[in-house]
């Protein structure tokens, strides 16, 4: 793969612009029982969902904020807008999307990429989806790819069966909040044996200031199916904080394979607190591919519960923490069945005063024989003020387990830079080359277009690092 040379000039955060879209509905700031009921009413939801939301709201009130991890003390739940409807109709033809919103997404390159190489796309703007399309071929084979609100209306039985089955509201305070006020997100169902050849993409955009985005994504991969889902996220740069708190639930049934890729590039004022979890059944494979470049604070630990024999978890993530950012990320794999395997690769880069943290758990329960787990964390520190932490928890209750954990911390080496420079490559390019090489195990898993974008974003982050 080539290393793109781009003329990124003086750009900083490229997606930091905002639009003047007049929302159809915008709630006042703050959260109450009524907020929760209003959201449910606006969406004309079935009673069970309203009840579920209200129960979750109670749990939210009871649960304490997490005391470990990043500093969340600045979050004020009363200073957040919990629901914004940008457009009252969801479009299936790109031309019908309101002009300002369309322009935003076009600036982000969404329809372009869809035409090129996607099997389907969803675009969420603030609280709800404004656009969705799925190629006819997959629709015919019974694939469902809609936003979760639509899914609740059109596939209520499926939603009811799985909603909260992987991440219950009581899991943690933010999961409870999401369950109470969720809106939007993707719902993806792949029928038995269907292998979707091209990736499906969802795009999440926060536009309104002080907005809280609480999408709920569910993927059900039926037996023997195969799917690749990619999500991207951006937001305008505001001086006040926004909150993104999603819940993602994935069920990988027997022999299925799901690859879930996230390119998180929120602006520097977004708290990104996300609960992502998958259950993998017999011989199924769940892959989380997780890039965290943006946000002020991210706390996200994509998890896999290996439920049945032969299930497999692969998690590979990169984090880039620049000044003002704390990327507190990692992964959790729980081996609940024998002969299950997991592999976690984490790469982090800290620049300026940025801090990146790996936090992970590998747990092998008693009697689960023949499990294997391999964890590898590498941190690269670019500047004197950069910082990194590694907190891996390894809990092993079975003697037949084979567990390996390794972590290294190093700085961008002067020797490497000098070596590349001696071959004629200028210093800044040499740095980028080394960093792109460092995250190569990650980028090689991305579709080419994303890999190029990824390297470009990293280069953007690296701007001005050569003094």
């Amino acid at each position, binding site marked *: 793969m080539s290393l793109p040379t781009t003329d990124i000039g003086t750009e900083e955060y490229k997606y930091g612009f905002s639009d003047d879209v007049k929302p159809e509905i915008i709630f006042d700031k703050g959260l109450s029982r009524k907020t929760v009921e209003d959201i449910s009413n606006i969406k004309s939801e079935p009673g069970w969902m309203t009840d579920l939301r209200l129960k979750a709201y109670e749990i939210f009130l009871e649960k304490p904020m997490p005391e470990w991890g990043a500093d969340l003390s600045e979050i004020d739940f009363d200073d957040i807008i919990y629901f914004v409807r940008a457009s009252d109709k969801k479009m299936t033809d790109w031309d019908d999307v309101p002009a300002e919103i369309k322009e935003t997404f076009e600036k982000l390159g969404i329809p372009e990429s869809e035409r090129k190489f996607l099997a389907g796309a969803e675009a969420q703007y603030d609280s709800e989806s404004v656009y969705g399309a799925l190629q006819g071929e997959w629709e015919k084979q019974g694939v469902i790819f809609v936003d979760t609100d639509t899914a609740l209306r059109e596939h209520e039985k499926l939603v009811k069966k799985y909603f909260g089955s992987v991440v219950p509201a009581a899991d943690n305070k933010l999961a409870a909040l999401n369950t109470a006020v969720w809106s939007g997100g993707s719902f993806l169902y792949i029928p038995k044996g269907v292998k979707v050849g091209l990736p499906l993409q969802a795009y999440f955009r926060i536009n309104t200031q002080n907005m809280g985005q609480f999408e709920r994504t569910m993927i059900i991969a039926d037996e023997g199916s195969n799917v690749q889902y990619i999500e991207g996220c951006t937001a305008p740069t505001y001086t006040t904080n926004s909150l993104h708190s999603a819940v993602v639930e994935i069920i990988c049934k027997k022999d299925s394979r799901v690859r879930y890729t996230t390119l998180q590039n929120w602006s520097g004022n977004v708290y990104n607190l996300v609960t992502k979890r998958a259950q993998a059944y017999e011989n199924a494979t769940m892959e989380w591919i997780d890039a965290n470049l943006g946000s002020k604070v991210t706390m996200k630990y994509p998890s896999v519960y290996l439920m049945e024999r032969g299930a497999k978890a692969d998690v590979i993530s990169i984090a880039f923490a620049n000044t003002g950012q704390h990327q507190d990320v990692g992964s959790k794999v729980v081996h609940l069945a024998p002969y299950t395997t997991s592999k976690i690769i984490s790469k982090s880069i800290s620049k300026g005063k940025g801090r990146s943290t790996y936090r992970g758990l590998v747990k092998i329960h008693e009697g689960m024989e023949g499990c294997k787990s391999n964890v590898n964390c590498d941190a690269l520190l670019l500047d004197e003020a950069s910082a990194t932490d590694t907190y891996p928890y390894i809990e092993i209750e079975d003697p037949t387990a084979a567990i390996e954990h390794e972590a290294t911390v190093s700085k961008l080496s002067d020797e490497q830079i000098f070596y590349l420079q001696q071959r004629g490559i200028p210093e800044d390019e040499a740095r980028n*080359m080394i960093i792109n090489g460092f995250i190569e195990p990650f980028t090689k898993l991305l579709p080419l277009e994303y890999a190029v974008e990824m390297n470009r974003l990293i280069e953007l982050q690296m701007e001005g690092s050569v003094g």
Partner: protein
Amino acid sequence: MTEKNGLLTVENLKVKIGDKEILKGVDLKIGPGEVHAIMGPNGTGKSTLAYALAGKSSYEVTSGSVTMEGENVLEMSPDERARKGLFLAFQYPSEVPGVTVDNFLRVAYNTIKKEELSIWEFRNLLKEKMEFLKIDESFSGRYLNEGFSGGEKKRNEILQMAVLQPKLAVLDETDSGLDIDALQIVAKGVNELLPEDSSVLVITHYQRILRYIKPDFVHVMIEGRIVETGGGELAEKLEEKGYDWLKEKYGESGKDSD
């Protein structure tokens, strides 16, 4: 003072690492197409000269001058020197995980040659040189120096030299750790893959490599100075007699003049 017909001119070069002066006034002139060798015991500053020529930042030049084709090399950054045609084959090349040999070398090639060879064009160019150096095809897709054996690293350095076609190739202990077969391949690469008018500076402790890369000039460095200069016969004399007689002859004076 520059000479039009010289390629590299080093005059009274003094270099410090930290507080310690390693090079204590080195003079060296290399003309186009010439092969020079610098020999000497370990720790006398041979590699320091190589790094200083290439512009390593921790090597502080305290006095003297280095010019290439009349231009002041000391004012150039390491990559500018490389683009000027100075190539250093490292004794210990750095590992750069995630960056493949072909990708790295293409970027270097395009930068130095100011060309825009596509991956395919470049791979053809690379393939030819690799065959010559008996390097396996899979090599170009491996990460730069990562997990390479000692011999592979050295061959990789020579491959890079062959691709980048420098005006001056400085080989820093390229012979160390090579078996006789590998040494012959490396030497053949140096002899046959460089343009006629390219110059070579071989830095070595042993005479062995000089059997295959015939030097026009042999210099002996003791304690940061070039103390003897001669032809190929000097190398043979050193092989026979070792360095002790030179150390005795020049070692003390080296210390005195500090």
